[in-house]
């Protein structure tokens, strides 16, 4: 009976939403033309002939993510790492107890992994470093890079990964340094502005009228997107390290993980 009521309520809600769409709540779908906001964003993402009103980033989505809506992305990063910290905090004691064993897989799988792991890392680096020119960016690159330690964890076992130097503490250090670098990149123009005695803004990428500080818009003859490429690199490192931390922790054997629950039999 309860399920029938829930099903009816869900059907009613979905029909209501569908009717709103039919009445044009979301505009025509698919739209015939771009909104003015979208046109403004596309026009300003890359136009080198107007250096005071562009982000010098031909990939408009990355320009939106790290320049036009940079503050939004900074807080998104805070939420993401908040969730990772919350996950790790649940394993507060076992995170320090290393020296665990894991079964490795067969020779064929191990050699195939040895070939594929560097390739995964190359694709990740290309995705992050080209984020301002082609689809991709810091988060995507970091997420791809995080696949490498996960595959290695399953194929070689946790201990081998720790022997190779991919440890909890190192991943933590990389993640924290990358987060500090993101903060410094965001605050860099402001600090430089205070030192030089000129106007500057937090998350400023290219110079504006009255606030002339800019991150270098070119790397040799390729557009760098100014601060966008720095954000992409640091975000990729932070995401890859954050995921590695979580996977190293989740890969604990059942016996060790259960030690966390000792003394918590009551009080739920």
């Amino acid at each position, binding site marked *: 009976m309860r399920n029938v009521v829930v*099903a009816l309520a869900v059907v009613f809600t979905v029909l209501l939403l*569908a009717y709103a769409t039919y009445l044009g709540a979301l505009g025509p*779908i*698919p*739209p015939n033309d771009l909104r003015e906001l979208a046109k403004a964003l596309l026009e300003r993402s890359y136009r080198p002939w107007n250096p005071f009103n562009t982000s010098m980033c031909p*990939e408009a*989505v990355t320009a939106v993510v790290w320049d036009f809506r940079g503050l*939004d992305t900074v807080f998104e990063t805070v939420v*993401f790492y908040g969730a990772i910290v919350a996950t790790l905090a649940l394993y507060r004691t076992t995170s320090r107890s290393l020296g665990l064993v894991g079964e490795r897989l067969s020779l064929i799988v191990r050699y195939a992994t040895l070939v594929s792991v560097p390739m995964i890392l190359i694709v990740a680096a290309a995705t992050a470093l080209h984020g301002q020119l082609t689809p991709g960016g810091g988060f995507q690159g970091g997420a791809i890079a995080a696949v490498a330690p996960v595959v290695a964890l399953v194929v070689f076992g946790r201990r081998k990964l720790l022997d190779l130097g991919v440890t909890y503490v190192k991943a933590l250090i990389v993640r924290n340094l990358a987060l500090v670098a993101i903060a410094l990149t965001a605050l860099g123009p402001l600090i430089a502005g205070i030192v030089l005695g000129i106007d500057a803004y937090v998350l400023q990428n290219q110079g504006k009228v009255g606030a002339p500080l800019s991150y270098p818009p070119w790397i040799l003859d390729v557009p760098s997107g100014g601060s966008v490429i720095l954000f992409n690199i640091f975000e990729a490192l932070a995401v890859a390290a954050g995921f590695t931390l979580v996977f190293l922790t*989740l890969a604990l054997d059942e016996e060790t993980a259960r030690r966390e629950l000792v003394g918590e039999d009551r009080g739920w």
Partner: protein
Amino acid sequence: MVGDPKTLVALIVLFSLYANLGASMYGVIARKNLVKKLICLTMLGDTVNVFAILVGYRLSRGGTPVPPVFTEWSKASEKLLANFVSRSVDPLPQALVLTAIVINLAVTIFLATLILYTHRHFGTVEMDRVSEMKKGELVDEVEVS
């Protein structure tokens, strides 16, 4: 007009998205198994994301729409940029969806860990059985005190 193939495809996509939305909402509310609830929650998030992408899509007169990447940057001119703007899809929903995916992922990691803990503590991820065990523990505590 439904007779137009592009509109027909958009209608089919919209219909399937609403069906997906209903199925995932039902799963989140009615399923007893926490793992299935989590799967339905990720389905719900992905469906809403596809909605946002669809709203940011556009029909382009005189050619197919292009991704919001200005590929001709090496010979950029005002004319090429205007041509790009006239054909590109909206970059803003894509950026917002990227943010939503990251937040979704963070929430999924946290919820998966909590479900893992629930399983370790109670030996099950069925909500009804967990509630019964919690009631039993409460009775025990009252009797002890």
